[in-house]
């Protein structure tokens, strides 16, 4: 469903939008899962006592993957489409009464998934009887050519003009052709799909007695690049390993991992020259690998009909003075200034933003990575990887740079303009090493990262710390034991271990409501600390710390000179100062105002005593508003309202204090 509002003459655009990842997001993706239903695909692994052993037939595992992917995509790509096509089934059903495509069964049509689609899939995965009914293989076997042409039709009609259309093909048959003719037709149909701009992603499954050999058939069907990202190197999914009972890596897990790595179509955020020195450029592409996933914003639904329906909205512009409808071309951008507006012509606006030159990543020099403190973080990092499109030899130069930065623990500083109109930023270019999991599958790709750095304007001051107590070596040592006792597994923070509890909860509830099922009442929150473990590991040290802390605290408080007041003003009556510990300290709080330009500081106002005296003499209403406000503010009371209110509030306060 192409969003009809995308291209309307006046989409909402109140303010000059910073084009960030938005353009990245609007590129839509359609995935059609094609799952082979054949006797071998339906064969279950031999029963085993091992709990971790495979139980699923390849087809079931693929359906489970599809089920999980569908739920995941509702969260991560809410506007993207997904469909599931079974092939080789006895039944033929393509919804709209079409039976051209023999032995193809469209389990869920290519569309943005609905709650019903999720339910249907879940039932199929969880209910064996229903599954058995449907998952009956035909005797003849399915023709891959038919499947490919079927996918062609589905993509053409259901996902027109999508920039990314992908066919996920799950099969264990590495040579699905009886005669040469069958293969040739399949090759032609694969070519059609390629010309249509669709990608075939093959997820091959190896059988116990038969490894999957891509070169027999599928290497003639699959193309090395994807039309949506023609230049990016494709990583070919390797065939699943044969799961031996008990080795812990089930077929399902392997398949999930391969599919997850393709869950979102890989698309470059930008393609830019990386200037290593004057006159020396290579080509790189940028990708977003880390990005905060938010849940969908609430929207309007129309409740006037039988079922609640999603509402689309479009905006038109109206002149405020005459209520006349305004065309977008009439709109002018202007800055508010001094109660009026400052305008520039559209050409000037372009000049203002683009006066810093062409989009580029230009290296300015190198520094040790140690000069990149964590406090200097301002936003997420962007991943870059070399591209040979514009400069031949980019990959080897990039590789040399990446390896050098790793080896010498250095970073580059670079001037970075991501695209025309983007604000220039300074980034640290740091290296990222390839990381593999226990199965040798990549968990982090090798490349470089652009970490945006703050400008002087972006750095805030830490609130002042005057006369703060400081730790002692002894105290630090006790605490250090706590730190050392409570390391995370392997000493790393692994995002995999922490699903976003809020996001998960949100979609669980939403799913339950959409299917009109019971709403769960307890969330599964993996981010909660493991209290029991903490208690076991560090409680004794914390108790030690508590004792040492008390002793040290008493010592320090006794020795600390009484609060030194700022000079230049008489100290108020001593009695007022010694009332409680917190009072003079509170005074310090008021003082931390934004620095007045001339350095003329104000000292927090009168003490309770002084104010009480003034009040007793009946002079309180002679105080200026500023004095009253200071007094109130220092005591955490509101400072709004007229002078009468302020005086009232001060008197109330004094009364409460019994003064």
């Amino acid at each position: 469903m192409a969003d009809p509002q995308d291209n309307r003459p006046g989409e909402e655009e109140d303010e000059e939008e910073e084009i960030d990842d938005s353009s990245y997001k609007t590129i839509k993706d359609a995935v059609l899962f094609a799952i082979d239903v054949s006797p071998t695909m339906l064969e279950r692994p031999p029963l085993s006592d091992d709990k971790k052993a495979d139980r699923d037939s390849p087809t079931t595992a693929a359906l489970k993957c599809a089920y999980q992917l569908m739920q995941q995509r509702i969260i991560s790509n809410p506007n993207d489409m997904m469909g599931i096509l079974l092939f080789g089934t006895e039944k033929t059903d393509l919804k709209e009464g079409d039976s051209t495509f023999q032995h193809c069964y469209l389990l869920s049509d290519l569309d943005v998934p609905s709650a019903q689609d999720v339910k249907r899939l879940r039932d199929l995965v969880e209910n064996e009887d229903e599954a058995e009914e449907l998952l009956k293989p035909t005797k003849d076997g399915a023709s891959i050519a038919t499947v490919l042409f079927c996918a062609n039709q589905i993509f053409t009609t259901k996902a027109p003009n999508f920039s990314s259309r992908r066919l996920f093909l799950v099969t264990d048959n590495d040579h699905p052709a009886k005669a040469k003719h069958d293969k040739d037709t399949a090759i032609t149909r694969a070519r059609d799909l390629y010309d249509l701009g669709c990608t075939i992603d093959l997820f091959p499954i190896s059988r116990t007695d038969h490894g999957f050999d891509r070169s027999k058939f599928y290497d003639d069907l699959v193309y090395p690049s994807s039309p949506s990202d023609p230049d990016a190197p494709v990583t070919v999914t390797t065939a699943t390993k044969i799961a031996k009972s008990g080795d812990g890596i089930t077929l399902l897990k392997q398949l999930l991992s391969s599919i997850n790595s393709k869950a979102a179509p890989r698309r470059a955020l930008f393609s830019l020259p990386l200037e290593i020195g004057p006159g020396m450029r290579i080509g790189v592409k940028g990708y977003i690998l880390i990005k905060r996933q938010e849940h969908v914003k609430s929207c309007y639904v129309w409740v006037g009909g039988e079922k609640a329906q999603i509402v689309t909205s479009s905006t038109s512009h109206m002149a405020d003075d005459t209520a006349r409808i305004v065309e977008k071309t009439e709109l002018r951008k202007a800055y508010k200034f001094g109660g009026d507006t400052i305008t520039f012509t559209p050409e000037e606006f372009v000049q203002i933003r683009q006066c810093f030159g062409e989009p580029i990543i230009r290296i300015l020099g190198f520094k040790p990575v140690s000069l990149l403190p964590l406090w200097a973080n301002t936003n997420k990092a962007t991943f870059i990887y070399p591209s040979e499109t514009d400069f031949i030899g980019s990959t080897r130069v990039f590789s040399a740079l990446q390896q050098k930065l790793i080896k010498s623990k250095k970073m580059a500083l670079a001037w970075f303009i991501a695209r025309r109109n983007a604000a220039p930023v300074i980034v640290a270019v740091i290296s990222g090493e390839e990381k593999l999991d226990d199965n040798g599958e990549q968990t982090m790709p090798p490349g470089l990262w652009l970490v945006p750095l703050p400008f002087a304007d972006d750095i805030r001051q830490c609130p002042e710390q005057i006369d703060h107590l400081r730790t002692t070596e002894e105290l630090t040592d006790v605490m250090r034991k706590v730190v050392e006792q409570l390391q995370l597994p392997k000493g790393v923070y692994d995002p995999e271990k922490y699903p976003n509890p809020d996001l998960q909860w949100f979609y669980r509830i939403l799913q339950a409501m959409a299917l009109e099922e019971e709403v769960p009442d307890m969330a599964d929150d993996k981010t909660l600390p493991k209290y029991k473990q903490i208690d076991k590991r560090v409680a004794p040290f914390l108790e030690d710390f508590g004792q040492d802390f008390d002793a040290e605290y008493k010592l320090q408080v006794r020795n600390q000179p009484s609060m030194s007041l700022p000079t230049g003003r008489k100290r108020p009556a001593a009695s007022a100062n010694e009332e409680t510990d917190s009072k003079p300290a509170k005074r310090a709080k008021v003082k931390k105002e934004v620095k007045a330009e001339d350095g003329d500081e104000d000292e927090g106002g009168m003490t309770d005593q002084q104010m009480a005296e003034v009040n007793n003499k009946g002079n309180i209403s002679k105080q200026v508003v500023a004095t009253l406000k200071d007094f109130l503010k220092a005591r955490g009371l509101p400072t709004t309202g007229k002078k009468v209110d302020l005086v009232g509030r001060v008197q109330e306060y004094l009364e409460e204090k019994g003064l």
Partner: protein
Amino acid sequence: MAQKEATVFVLDLGKSMGEKGHGRDKTNLDWVMEYVWDKITTTVATGRKTAMMSVVGFRTDETELHGFMDEIEGYSNITVLSGLKQFLLPDIRELQQQVAPSSTNQGDLLSALAVAVQIIDTGTQGKNGKPLKFDRRIIVVTDGRGHMDTGDLDAIASKITDDDARIELVVLGVDFDDPDYGYKEEDKSDRKQQNEATLQDFVEKCDGSFATLAVAIDQLEIPRIKDTRPTPSYKGTLTLGDAQKYEGTLTIDVERYPCTMIAKPPTASSFVVRSDLGGAPGPSTQSTATLAGDSIQDGQLSAVRNQRVYQVENPDEPGIKSNVEPDELERGYEYGRTAVHIAESDLNIVKLETEQCLELIGFVPEDKFERYLPLSRSNYIVPQKTNKQAQLALSSFIHALFEAGSYAVARLVTKDLKPPVMVLLVPRIEPDFEALIDVELPFEEDMRRYRFPPLDKKLTVSGKIITEHKDLPNTDLMSAMSAYVDALDLSTFGRDDDGEPTEYMKFDETYSPLLHRVNHVIRWRATNPLAATLPEPPKILTKYSMPPPDLVAQTAPHLSALKAAADVKKVPPKQKGRGKRSLRDREKPLSGLDVGELLGNPKRVKIELGNLIPSFKQALAATDDLEAIQAAADAMASAIRSLIAESVGESAYGRALEAIRVMRDEITELEEPEMYNKFARELKADLLGGKMKGDRREMWWRIRGSRYGLIDRKRSFASGVTEEEAAEFYKG
């Protein structure tokens, strides 16, 4: 709230200010005003009502005190150009008219100063005559060549230094001697010499600042950084363990403040030129003429309001939409394409129940932490204000982390019912403060698992590892890169105040280019409404867009060695001339199979409606013959037209749009733009003319919105369509 401000500018408008001194290309007055306008526009830009300004001119032709002084005697040739008030754009315009060198040199600076003091006095006192809390400032700019009556100096000085209403005095002189700045004017007149001495002496008495103007002008270049009052985003506890259930736990009262926060440039809003001003009297006679020239005068723009229309799709007739009333709308969410309606009272049901907290989960060694993981700006976590116990406890925690070389991972909920985030806590110990720094860490869902091939080796399809390949650096390239990286070192390239090597390009030396650029041109335009070309951005903003030139020169040999070892070749832009593509040149499947040959390299491919796009592409690829191409294009065109004409509602528009896109791209590549342009023109006419079985304007909106209009010269050199014509095509 920032402190209230009252600033009086005392401007020397004497005849001598019209001169151009010491080879400058602008008059002394223009030079001085560069400084003054900058100060004024900066204040106006804050939009603060409590930042008031006033302007007093002396050595003016006229005398006008607007009743600020009881008597005029002794105050001749002094003009109060503007009383103390918040300045707005019209005030700037008005002042611009008034600021010009006079035809006299009569008028006393010190008398003008007395007027300025009086203006501040009356403007900053309460009803009972007592001075209010204000930042008071007087800024005097002069060339120091007028006559000064020094009789009242002490009286004025005592007024300025009055403790209850202190005034900060700044005197800036054109070509004044300034040993600190290293400037001495040769051939100075005796009077100026004497005046300078008098003024300097006086300013010292008033505890003010005295400088030559050039200093102030120089400093204008340095962007001003806005001070922001820190506001806490979390006030609560930092805990380790569950104090409710266990004995040995840790709880520290802390607060969280921003450490970095991107300062955004001001944003422009949408306006529309007021339509009711057409025949109105006043300035419009002149400005309607200039309107055509795309410059708009103040006050002629009207705000724009957005009006929303809500639509739903009719479930029985796909592709048909109907409008719905806003009062039939309620809140909900989309779950896939299913609408989930949630009553206003139930909205909390989707929220995870959380309680405010900052709970430690565990620790990680700093050298194992991947620096690219954090995805947010940073914050300070400091002890609760005035809480001594928290100070001591947090201090020991910070130091323990520091000494153990560890970071902490914690779960943060800033307020009850807010979603939890994982944060990394990093110790930061500076001479004047200690804090934990927090940055947000990604969750599982925030990671995109794209895979990329390794960079230091190649894997063949069969799984063999190759170490020598054109994509892998050889040892020459590796060592050249290593030498270059080491040579272009910035960590000691800078020089500190004592000339000692220091880090080049520290964070606090870089200024946000766009932020200051936008502010700069807004202020500039405020005082130069009619200037034709925008000024260049100040140099300080582009300083770090290039590597330092000195270092580039130094490292040139390393760079050329690197270039030689790298042997990078730019891919030449596409060859001009008719795209000669054949099936053979096209992309091959992984096996390298020649699909064209398999099909017997057909000369003509028929366009099939059921396989439209692939057959169109294949038809074009199969031939070089112009006629055949034209035939394919015609077949495509008629297929597109029938898609649109037969479409139920908007249902086939997407397919039609895709076909149009493919046709446009392919024809562009074949460099026969007219084939497409002819089709596009006819299609537009028919769509808007209602000749495609019904109202098909929506289809035109989509073509327009997707920018699938005419192929212009910029896109294809063979096109006869100019960029203007192409832009014009989208209108209507």
